């Protein structure tokens, strides 16, 4: 109940943030302009529209999660609104989870709006509603949950600017981590290989949530892959949230 109250207030606060609508506007522009890109590229124009559209949803969703998530706790401490919350009979983890779920709900709404624009644009070109696109969007949502938890973690001990840089780095590294797999194959066995292997397992692999190509190309995806991605997302998000709670529970609000 207390978490719900904080989440609802976070949602109310977030939907009043202009940056959200600015990003939504640019996401819509990118989705619409995918048609132009389709004209300049060789290949099936609808597939390019779908690919660019889904990428835009993923990218702008991540930007929303990072830009809003990094200010989530910092703003409360900076403006001292947290004083009257923490002094109430509430555990600090409840406050943090409330903030997390509030932003997740906001992102869910934003994702729905972007999806609506995207599906309407695809419908305009194909005259069919392609429901399988929702599978790709659902995994984008799981990715956003993880990115939000990371932004929230940084927000617990750093300023919004630094937190944004760290979270953005997390996002970029997460989408390029697959390169390490290739590197592992090329490095001869030894200390170096072990280190790179350890690094590969530690850093996030956000490509686990990327089913855009498979969905657009109508490729078969084994259900184990879906299950693995869901579990990966759930446990990684949980892990980051636990660290955030540990950091936050001992923090002084000066």
């Amino acid at each position, binding site marked *: 109940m207390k978490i719900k109250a904080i989440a609802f207030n976070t949602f109310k606060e977030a939907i009043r943030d202009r940056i959200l609508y600015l990003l939504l506007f640019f996401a819509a522009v990118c989705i619409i302009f995918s048609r132009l890109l389709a004209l300049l590229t060789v290949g099936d124009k609808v597939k390019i529209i779908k690919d660019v559209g889904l990428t835009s949803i993923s990218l702008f969703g991540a930007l929303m999660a990072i830009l809003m998530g990094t200010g989530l706790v910092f703003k409360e401490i900076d403006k001292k609104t947290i004083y009257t919350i923490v002094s109430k*009979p509430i555990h600090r983890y409840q406050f943090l989870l409330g903030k997390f779920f509030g932003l997740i709900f906001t992102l869910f709404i934003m994702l729905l709006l972007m999806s609506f624009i995207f599906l309407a644009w695809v419908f305009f070109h194909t005259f069919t509603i392609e429901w399988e696109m929702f599978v790709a969007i659902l995994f984008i949502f799981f990715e956003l949950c993880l990115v939000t938890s990371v932004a929230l973690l940084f927000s617990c001990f750093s300023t919004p600017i630094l937190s944004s840089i760290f979270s953005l780095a997390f996002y970029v590294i997460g989408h390029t981590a697959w390169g390490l797999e290739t590197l592992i194959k090329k490095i001869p066995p030894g200390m170096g290989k072990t280190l790179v292997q350890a690094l590969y397992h530690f850093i996030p692999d956000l490509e686990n949530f990327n089913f855009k190509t498979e969905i657009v190309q109508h490729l078969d995806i084994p259900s184990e892959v879906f299950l693995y991605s869901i579990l990966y997302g759930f446990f990684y998000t949980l892990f980051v949230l636990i660290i955030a709670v540990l950091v936050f529970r001992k923090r002084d609000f*000066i």
Partner: protein
Amino acid sequence: MGTVLKIENLHKSFKLGFLLKKKEILRGISLSVEQGEVFGYLGPNGAGKTTTIKCILGLIFPEKGKIEIFSHPHLSPKAKEKIGFLPENPYFYDHLTASEFLDYYSQLFLLKKGEKEEKIKNLIRLVNLEDSADLQLRKFSRGMLQRIGMAQALLNDPSLAFLDEPLGGLDPLGRKEMRDIIVRLKDEGKTVFLSSHILQDIEMICDRVAIIVNGKIINQGALHDLISEKILFTEVILSGVEEKELEGLGEYFSGHGDRTLLKVFKEENVEKVLQHVQSKNGKVHSLIPRTETLEDLFVEIVKQR
């Protein structure tokens, strides 16, 4: 009467600057607050008043010391259920209206719907914000924010209310209203822990005070024990008498028009002044004996340190 708040040997320091130099803010604070009293916590700026309150409320963690609220550890939900807090310079969620704000906070106390609505209505009436209940907090003046802050502090009908500078930034009328609320809380048997440096107000409403300077409690006790009731001097405002004629009887202080303010330090001289004025057909406009004030005591203590 039982002890509602007990603090023993509280220490807190902060690491400041690039080199994280340690600065001791609280150096062994010990105090206790009894049920039903208004306890004044006084000190100059930077003495450690707000830091003490933050430690009590769990906003910061002390390095050493023990805090108990109603015999419970201060961080336990049982303790927090019984307290209310109004911070200094309150800043709340400015996108919410006054009613929405109180509704949000009442959910943190798990108040039931009917009870919640009734309570919010009563509190808005108590702090005189009935006309602004549906106004966003961003449109509130400083005084209005202070009043809505007071309302949120009383949402759970607390047995112990912590008020950090509740009278700061208020106009005289606002200060009176706030004082009335505090007195009303006392009349209802609640305990108030009041941090302030507006000494006249403290003197008016507090039963006991503690004075903190540089992170240490210098003096604490009942107001009547701390302040001497002995007359320090008598202020006499008179007219119709030349200043020169009053030399030796008192200290000429100031003159306004034909009136003269005279500070008379010896009681026998007061009689002489009155006789002299009468003999010269002058007029005594006022005669006020001055006892020691909390301000005198406070200034003396702070100067000594």
